[in-house]
């Protein structure tokens, strides 16, 4: 029943869209009909263009996100464990956090040219902070009482990290990853503004210049669907790895 409820609003929107388009309630250029969008989708699939753009965009998102994760995860862990360092890094990180990645585009083009690097850097900037802040928060929120258990059993700092801090932080890390991937998709269009010749963002901008609003909508739907599918897969991975959260929902004998 819960799954059906989630589809009610999209179905209503589809109905309004279809009926409105059929009755010519709005200009077909501003809002193309669902049939036109479906036809455009089929053409893009048949020509292989949609698939090619998706692969390029996915590659950028995953590369950018992987770089962001490799920087954010260790930094979050280190600052969480050595809290005195937070004061040292905090002003600089706060400054960068408040600068929209797109504002850096002109400088990134100057520094890195118009190749793949500036696009990846924009995605890195967009997805770094969700992963970093959630990892840091996870380490800081690790129950001190659990750490005392490790201490009472004579665990070393390394053992306390692997046996207590890391497992306790995992749910926070996964939340950071889900948010970070979402931010990566958001930054993608901005990243593909930078002299791109492929990718979903490029496809949307190209369609805009050619006044092909049906293709623009295909691009928007592709980003939304891809983002949701990746988030769903990550959620399933989280549930698989963090079974004790699942246990929380299924309270048994208490």
């Amino acid at each position: 029943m819960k799954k059906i409820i989630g589809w009610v609003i999209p179905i209503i929107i589809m109905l309004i869209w279809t009926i409105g388009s059929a009755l010519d309630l709005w200009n077909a250029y501003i809002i193309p009909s669902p049939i036109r969008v479906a036809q455009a989708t089929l053409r893009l699939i048949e020509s292989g263009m949609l698939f090619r753009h998706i692969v390029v965009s996915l590659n950028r998102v995953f590369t950018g996100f992987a770089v962001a994760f490799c920087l954010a995860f260790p930094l979050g862990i280190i600052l969480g464990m050595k809290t005195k360092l937070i004061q040292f890094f905090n002003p600089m990180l706060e400054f960068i956090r408040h600068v929209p990645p797109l504002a850096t585009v002109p400088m990134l083009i100057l520094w890195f040219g118009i190749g793949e690097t500036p696009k990846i850097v924009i995605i890195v900037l967009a997805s770094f902070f969700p992963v970093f802040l959630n990892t840091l928060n996870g380490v800081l929120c690790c129950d001190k009482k659990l750490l005392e258990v490790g201490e009472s059993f004579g665990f070393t700092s390394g053992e306390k990290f692997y046996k207590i801090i890391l497992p306790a932080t995992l749910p926070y890390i996964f939340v950071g990853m889900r948010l970070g991937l979402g931010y990566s998709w958001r930054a993608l269009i901005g990243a593909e503004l930078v002299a791109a010749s492929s990718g979903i963002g490029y496809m949307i901008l190209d369609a805009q210049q050619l006044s092909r609003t049906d293709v623009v909508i295909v691009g928007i739907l592709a980003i939304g669907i891809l983002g949701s599918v990746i988030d769903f897969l990550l959620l399933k991975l989280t549930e698989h790895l963090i079974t004790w959260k699942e246990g929380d929902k299924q309270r048994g004998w208490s």
Partner: protein
Amino acid sequence: MAGVKISNLKKQYIVDKQRIHALKNVNLTIPDGSFTTIVGKSGCGKTTLLRLLCGLEEPTEGVIEFTCREESCKEISGKSVGIVFQESRLMPWLTVKENMAFPLFKTKSKKQADKIVEEYLHIMGLGKFKNAYPSQISGGMAQRAAVGRTLCYNPDIILMDEPFAALDYFTRNNLQEEIVKLFLSQGKTIVFITHNVEEAVYLGEKIVVLNEGQVIMEHKVPLSYPRQSNTLDFINIKEEILNTIIGNREKLNA
């Protein structure tokens, strides 16, 4: 087996620039293989004493010496001390079985650990719940698992910090009986902290009364196990200890 000799132990905390004396010159001998209960009202320094004993805190002054029964054993390390906290403090991401095996990964192979854990799962009556997560079992079961975890660790001295305080009457009675059985069968040195005088008399061979950070009474309990709380001797000892605590409080008030 091991005992503890505490000499001139002092512990001070600084709270809001004020010096708080949690323990004032405590001298105490806990013989090896004995069951000592430490009783006193809230804030008398019971938990501080236990945290100092297991090395979670450093004393301001004084010495804690661990003594061994065996002549060959000149000194025992802190690893021979295991603690059961007031809350179960089980790792929420581990099952009951994994929690009980938690302290063994350093010293035992998986096969050895499994054998030890199976034995204590049976003793603690948790066999059916070995694959349950802490969130899926009751508070009493969780506390039994915590006791089992410490027993699996096989320390020479078991410290218990009001482990049954949050449990209901029936669960508490069951666990008290189980602790006595374990003490009689394994002969470990047990230091049990409680604010419940009846519990102290039921469990301890020796009762130490703490008040305002000082030992005000040491009382040997000349009753054999299992004890009945409705016998005259039991009630007399309980009254004597209660009077000591109340009398001391009135004296301090005066």
